[in-house]
């Protein structure tokens, strides 16, 4: 392929040129890959440096344990607990929907469905994961909430229940596809052994396949927690924006993400207190999802090594 260099150039020189080119390309490819590290580092650096000003007016302990979040009022209070509470409540509702339905769907797809059915069902479920979240937010506010109000007439227009449910539906494909992969990678022999002992498909699915795939399945649960915690538009549109500590899903509440959106909508001068609070809130959010992500990937790594 490469034309040999003309006689005066020695073979050695040719090789040197080629080696140089190879090294240069490798260095460029490495830089591209290293960008991932640089991005993570700059996320952490930006979140810390832009929020550090806030911690000169309020102590970290007060920030993490305060129960009142009113940074725009006089006197301002900066206790992030109400936002954390809203985030965890909406995520909890989402998980109550997504985990059972996702697991059942995965079991059906992996253990019961025919090949043809699977070919059709899987891509259709994937569509749910591809719908823009702003569309889901619209759907929660203007379809699901009015629908729920027919059953619970006292439900306010903004509440945690409706966005939580919609978020759960959105997360079903995530749970289903990771859990299904985990269950399908359980060796055939285990199933056949169970069938030979007289177990039905249900008994095999529940007592053989599910326990064998448990680390993959639980990693899908943890990844879906981190997905729910970081979800923004659905809660920003449909959950209301009042930062109150409440465990009643029928009440409105603000999440960390919704607060960031709410503040971003207004005028946001660089370095102002409002500006610093969204970075502090973002820092809490990033650390929360980081912990879940690392834990989830650790679990999924473990199950990959099992077989």
């Amino acid at each position, binding site marked *: 392929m490469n034309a040999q260099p003309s006689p005066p150039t020695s073979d050695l020189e040719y090789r040197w040129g080629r080696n140089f080119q190879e090294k240069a390309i490798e260095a460029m490819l490495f830089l591209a890959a290293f960008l991932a590290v640089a991005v993570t580092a700059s996320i952490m650096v930006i979140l810390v440096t832009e929020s550090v000003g806030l911690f000169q007016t309020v102590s970290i302990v007060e920030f993490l344990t305060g129960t009142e979040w009113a940074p725009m009022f006089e006197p301002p209070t900066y206790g992030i607990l109400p936002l954390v509470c809203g985030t965890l409540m909406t995520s909890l509702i989402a998980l109550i929907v997504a985990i059972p339905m996702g697991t059942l769907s995965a079991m059906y797809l992996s253990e019961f469905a025919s090949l043809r059915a699977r070919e059709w069902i899987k891509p259709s479920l994937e569509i749910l994961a591809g719908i823009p979240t*702003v*569309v889901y937010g619209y759907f929660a506010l203007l379809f699901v909430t009015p629908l729920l109000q027919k059953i619970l007439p006292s439900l306010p227009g903004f509440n945690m229940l409706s966005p939580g449910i919609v978020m759960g539906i959105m997360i079903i494909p995530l749970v289903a596809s990771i859990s299904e992969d985990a269950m399908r990678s359980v060796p055939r022999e285990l199933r056949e052994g169970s069938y030979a002992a007289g177990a039905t498909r249900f008994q095999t699915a529940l007592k053989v396949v599910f326990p064998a795939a448990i680390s993959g399945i639980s990693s899908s649960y943890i990844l879906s927690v981190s997905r729910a915690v970081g979800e923004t538009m659905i809660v920003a549109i449909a959950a209301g924006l009042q930062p109150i500590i409440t465990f009643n899903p029928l009440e409105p509440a603000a999440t960390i993400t919704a607060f960031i959106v709410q503040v971003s909508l207004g005028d946001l001068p660089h370095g102002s207190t409002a500006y610093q609070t969204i970075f502090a809130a973002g820092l809490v*959010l990033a650390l929360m999802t980081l912990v879940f992500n690392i834990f989830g990937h650790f679990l999924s790594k473990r199950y990959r090594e099992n077989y």
Partner: protein
Amino acid sequence: MAIALPEQGLIALRKSVSRRQLYSNLFAIVGLISILVALVVLVALIIHLLSQGLTSIDWQFLTSPASSDAEEAGVFIALVGSGLVMLVTTTLAVPVGIAAGIYLEEYARKGWLADLIEINVTNLAGVPSIVYGLLALGLFKYALNLGESIITAGLTLALLVLPVVIVTTREAMRAIPSSLREAAYALGASKWRMVKDHILPYSMGSILTGIIIGLSRAIGETAPLVTIGALTFITFLPDSPIQPTFPFISFSWLLSPFTVLPIQMFSWVSRPDLAFEAKAAAAGAVLLALTLLMNGFASFLRYRLRKGIKW
């Protein structure tokens, strides 16, 4: 069976078998129902959007700028904005993502450095999109002083799409058997020649599928762009990239303010006016159609590829 079961035992056994079989079938039905519930919600969402928004979608809606008058408001500027932002995102994320994927799959030697990069890629894939928005706000908008511009938005979404491109590139390359690599080496190809002439062309189809899926996610992304302050009322087009005078190509559009389709929809959803609700539904229907088309194309591509490749 060597020992004949007594009549009584046989009946009991049959009963137990049919009972357990019934449970098994019931469970299958429950599983199917949970899938159906999810799909019914999907259908309800699509029907609701269309029933609310379809009447608003006409030629005028697609070609008019946003307006404070609900009657006249359209998505033209937002569509152009989405297109331009996607253009920037694609130009940045695709080459960098593929290059990173090649490095991790073909070049990286096992060791702490490769592990570090790998952990970071998987972690970035799980970072909430709004955190990318905060990064963009602090880094692109203020530290680099790029403002609320198309380039800021394009860069932000490029970072968001990057892990998707890296992961699909790696998966596509991993599927290529190593005999092909060895064959290229045996013919005297250098590593880069081997990658450029063999690995890359063979995996291009699958990589393209991943890129389209990544972009379909980026086009509907709202939160990170709201964070950089993109929710403004824009009624004018950015400068055209093609100019009538020399040098004919202009890049000033990169620094113009913009709006995109999901942001336009969000601003209409947050208005208390009923007329704008219909507009929001219409914008949502257009956005949904775009993402579904992209996803559908990716599925079609994946299906074709799976039929075509036989190693």
